[in-house]
């Protein structure tokens, strides 16, 4: 017998309110993007948790790997001058 199909894996992102970013909430199975969107609505927003949903086929997401986080994010480690607290502001000077 041919292998049963469970559809493909989709990752779901929900925007809870206007003006804030979409946030990853989980994943689900569906045959196509329309079904993925409808399933996402039924699985992840039964209590008005969202006003907008994105679904992305999981295989299309490229993620950084945990083993490499040290070297991958290293360039930011020695650049404290990117933060305002790095700078000395003379006493009495305001609005900087």
């Amino acid at each position, binding site marked *: 017998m041919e*292998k*049963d*199909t*469970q*559809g493909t*894996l989709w990752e779901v992102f929900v925007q809870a309110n206007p003006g804030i970013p979409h946030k990853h909430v*989980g*994943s*689900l*199975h*569906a*045959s*196509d993007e329309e*079904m993925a969107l409808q399933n996402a609505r*039924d*699985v*992840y927003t*039964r*209590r008005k948790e969202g006003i907008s949903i994105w679904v992305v086929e999981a295989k299309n997401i490229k*993620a950084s*790997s*945990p*083993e490499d986080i040290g070297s991958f994010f290293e360039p930011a480690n020695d650049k404290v001058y990117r933060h305002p607290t790095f700078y000395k502001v003379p006493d009495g000077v305001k609005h900087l």
Partner: protein
Amino acid sequence: MKDEKTLLEEFQSKIDKGIKIEPKDWMPEKYRKQLIRMMSQHAHSEIVGMLPEGNWITRAPSLRRKAILLAKVQDEAGHGMYLYSATETLGIDRSELLEQLHTGKAKYSSIFNYPTLTWADIGAIGWLVDGAAIMNQTALAKGSYGPYSRAMVRICKEESFHNRQGYEIMCSLAFGSEEQKQMAQDALNRWWWPAIMMLGPSDDSSPNSDELMRWKVKMESNDAIRERFIDRTVPQADYIGLTIPDPDLMFNKETGHYKHGPINWEEFFNVIKGNGPCNKIRLKARVDADRNGRWVREATEAYAAKKRIVNS
């Protein structure tokens, strides 16, 4: 490449600091296996758990109760979906998980192998079964595996309505006619012990708990969760004038906790082994649903394939 010992130390130190383990992080094989077992068992329980209650949807006593029960059963389906998805992040395929359920290799909660004989059983399930499940799940929400813990947080939030609607049903019956009160008492009599048992074997017969606690796969011992469940539930039964069917149940003033009478573990293990009153029909319902739904899954795939051709 780091050796196994260093990796294990780093893993443990993350857990000790309360940092969640994420799908792509290194983890011991035993941790992965144990989580797959626990999480899939949990997912299967949500799905099989729809059956005893589904039995009463068409016979709910009012439209209000019917709408509530429908929403609750739909939630269980959703919870099953969150949990299957979370389990898949550990590198196991959904069809494999379902295969394990359908062949009896994977278990689900023993409680769903009991029948729902009267409407009061729907009250007792929400009050006791969901009540006990919430105790367990609130603990699991603090667990170390990110996807599982996040699913638990969501599930706990949704389940508090399940618990309340059940108690509300019990209240209506307990404060109703004499027959209704008897019906409520009868449901409590039949569901109390299975609910106590569903929190798992007693600590002295529950093997390899130490490592699971250290890895925060298990957060609390079965007996500790059971004690908290009983402490919270007994006063709720008192309030509606129902009697907990345990003649040995006693409040211990020194510890501030209730002490329950002996549990019939033989019954528990017997139900787990497949000999409960409904094991066979529960499993058959799942296998049939899977088989009968197969053509639908295939049709949606064919439709998706056709659309891809048309659009290309």
